[in-house]
């Protein structure tokens, strides 16, 4: 007989320590997988997690990948904290990229300090508007935001596909599915010569700080928290539930849009089919690994970014497919959910008594 009981009180420190436990379990699980594949697990894990960040270039790449992850995850934390399940950050990222990229293409032969801010702003607005579709459908037509936001991801991706193949493709591009290169003043300034790390990281850090302020110090943040814990209470307290759903989706979409525009004006410099290696989906893992807490999300984004880098190094040195990165991301989520379950519930093994048989 196995009995599962809810734990009454969960200590705050253990709540924030379990993600670290999940990471160690992932390393262990990954070691086993590498062992089965015939590699020395310690060596393989070293290639995966240490080699990629053992030089300055590696560290800069880590931050380049962590920047969008952190930004999207922080936006998602607004939604998730208030019980709104926005699964479509990837679509909001792509749509932000489309709008920002479109503006960047308008300015392709312009120079000026004003170009980049306009592009960034339009990217954020693009993501925001795209996120409002599931929000408005949810508030006025009672649709399920999980489905709508998820399906809109494919709408955005196909739209991007159409644009880069058709109307927006580079006239001098020999029919490659990509747009022109953006002008210099439409690009995020590079922080250090020779490295790809760009000013987008400051946008992310400012967003993290603002989010912390909103979530923990404002009335809006308090309302989000209460709605997340009990919608009945939020209704009783008189919070405007519909407005709040739309606000959190707008914040979340704007962050994803910023991440998209940061990618295309940062490391990429143009629009093409694959402007995001599923950052929008991976950020969901980041948000939960960071416990929806702004500081936690910073650390979580660094760790998950490392799985992207590790996958690339492992592909080069171990000849394993780069999808190993996704295996690791999956394992992190699996172990996190597993340890959460044990955190909130205890399992009792009761011996079978003879007379029960």
């Amino acid at each position, binding site marked *: 007989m196995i009995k599962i009981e809810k734990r009454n009180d969960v200590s705050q420190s253990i709540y924030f320590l379990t993600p670290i436990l999940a990471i160690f379990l992932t390393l262990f699980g990954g070691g086993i997988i590498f062992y089965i594949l015939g590699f020395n697990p310690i060596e393989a894990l070293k290639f995966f997690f240490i080699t990629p960040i053992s030089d300055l270039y590696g560290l800069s790449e880590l931050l380049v990948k962590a920047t969008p992850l952190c930004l999207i995850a922080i936006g998602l934390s607004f939604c998730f904290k208030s019980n709104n399940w926005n699964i479509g950050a990837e679509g909001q990222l792509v749509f932000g990229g489309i709008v920002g990229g479109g503006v960047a293409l308008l300015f392709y032969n312009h120079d000026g300090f004003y170009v980049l801010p306009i592009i960034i702003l339009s990217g954020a607005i693009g993501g925001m508007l795209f996120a409002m579709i599931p929000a408005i459908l949810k508030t006025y037509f009672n649709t399920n935001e999980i489905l709508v936001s998820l399906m809109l991801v494919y709408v955005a991706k196909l739209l991007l596909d159409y644009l880069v193949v058709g109307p927006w493709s580079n006239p001098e591009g020999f029919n490659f599915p990509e747009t022109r290169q953006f002008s210099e003043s439409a690009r995020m300034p590079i922080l250090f010569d020779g490295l790809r790390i760009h000013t987008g990281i400051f946008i992310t850090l400012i967003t993290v700080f603002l989010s912390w302020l909103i979530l923990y110090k*404002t009335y809006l943040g308090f309302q989000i928290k*209460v709605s997340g*814990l009990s919608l*009945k*209470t939020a*209704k*009783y*307290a*008189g919070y405007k539930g519909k407005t709040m759903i739309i606000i959190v989706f707008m914040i979340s979409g704007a962050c994803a849009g910023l991440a998209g525009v940061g990618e295309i004006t940062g490391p990429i410099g143009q629009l093409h089919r694959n402007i995001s290696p599923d950052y929008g989906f991976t950020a969901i893992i980041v948000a939960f690994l960071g416990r929806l807490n702004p500081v936690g999300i910073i650390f979580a984004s660094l760790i998950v970014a490392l799985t992207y880098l590790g996958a690339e190094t492992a592909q080069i040195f171990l000849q394993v497919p780069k999808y190993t990165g996704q295996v690791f991301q999956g394992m992190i989520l699996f172990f996190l959910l597993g340890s959460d379950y044990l955190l909130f519930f205890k399992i009792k093994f009761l011996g079978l*008594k003879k007379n029960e048989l």
Partner: protein
Amino acid sequence: MNTKLKVSEISKIYPGCIANDKVSLEFGSGKIYALLGENGAGKSTLVKILSGVVKPDSGEVFLNNESIKLNSPLDAKKNNIGMVFQHFNLFETLSVFENLSMDSDKTNEDLRVLVNDILKKYNFKINLDVPVLNLSAGQKQKVEIIRCLIRNPKILIMDEPTSVLTEQETDDLFISLKQFSKDGILIIYITHKLKEVLSLCDEVAVMRKGKVVSVSNTTDEKIESLANKMVGENLNTIKKKINNFKNSEEILKVSNLNFKSDDPYETNLNDLNLSLKKGECLGIAGISGNGQNELFQILSGEIITEGTSIMFRNKEIGKLNPRERREYLMAFSPEDRIAQAAVPELKIYENVALNNFKSSNFFEKGLVNEKKIKEHSKKILSNFSVNTDNVELKSQFLSGGNLQKLIIGRELITSPELLVCFNPTWGLDVGAINYIHETLIQINEQGKSSILISTDNDELLKLSDRICVIYKGKLSKIMNADNVTAEKLGILMGGGSID
């Protein structure tokens, strides 16, 4: 055949509370036994042990002098112990007969013959082929009882069976129970209603704080003596002085209020009219599920109606949400104190901040003013004698009584003109109930008005100046409390009419 049931030295300890402390009792067939006690006295734990739901830490149960093991509800059934719980365990969409056959290993033909025999014998009038959801609470309970009777029980345990019944249904139930007893079934009747003990039972065991404090014949007891044993202290009963409000200012007027719900499990409200004077307490009685929930939500603003249907101090407020209504000095204490009036995972001061209105300055320019909220919370904790002074404590660690004091305190410390409360004392112990009642009387004395929606008639009769009954979404005429008796309420609550 005689049945003897004996529990011996039963103990069950939960973390932080001794639910049963060496409980020993003896029962014999042919009598109806009452197990009396307040909420939390340990009655339910003992019953759960007898029905195999909970295992005792120590102690034994003897049936006809043989020790029996009750490891699961199935064991209880095998030993012919039948149990009717307070909440029905029926499949609403299945027919009565399908519900009965699910639990029986007889063929459908045999079962139908048996059930018809039982119906005839005890004069139950139930159509076996209608879905359970069409039955009244009393009929559903009969289905539960028939389900036990199919198994020829030697022992029948009833857990607070009258809490959902009208007075008339209760009378019917008592007649049946007496008949069962005559047929040799040992009946254990769990309740906290003293009158029922005296009118129905032969022997009464009183439990307090996990212990059996007295066993006696009901003929030797009076309501007062049982109440004292149950509570363990001489209660100074409070009774409100009923005032005449003819010349007082009218503070609230609800006129032609209708509500039609899309949800089939909600009750529609039909043309409600009521008015409330300054300093007055209006009681709204009724069996739960007759529209009280919807009415509360409409008064609090969780459900929005036409502006003119609710006038508060001559202002249209029907369209305002709860927060906006609080600005007009209204306050609300919902029925569900755990999941609605407060959030268990939030700290006390955060729960206090839920009642936010402009002059509280809890949130200045959109920012949280933690210091202000905490000061305010401390004041509530001390003014309303909540059993802690730590505003950082999560409210899940407060007992029901303390949580309710916190909620009532939060609503009242702003000195509202009107408090609407819905079952403010359900599940509380007598001490906390008295405190809440005194508080509610006090606010009327201070010239503030209140609406008390409650399913507890004693509470209504004690606190209200005027009373009406809600039945199937309609209000009865509003009566002065001095003309109202529990019997009158019972008739109206069951859909009957008086005069």
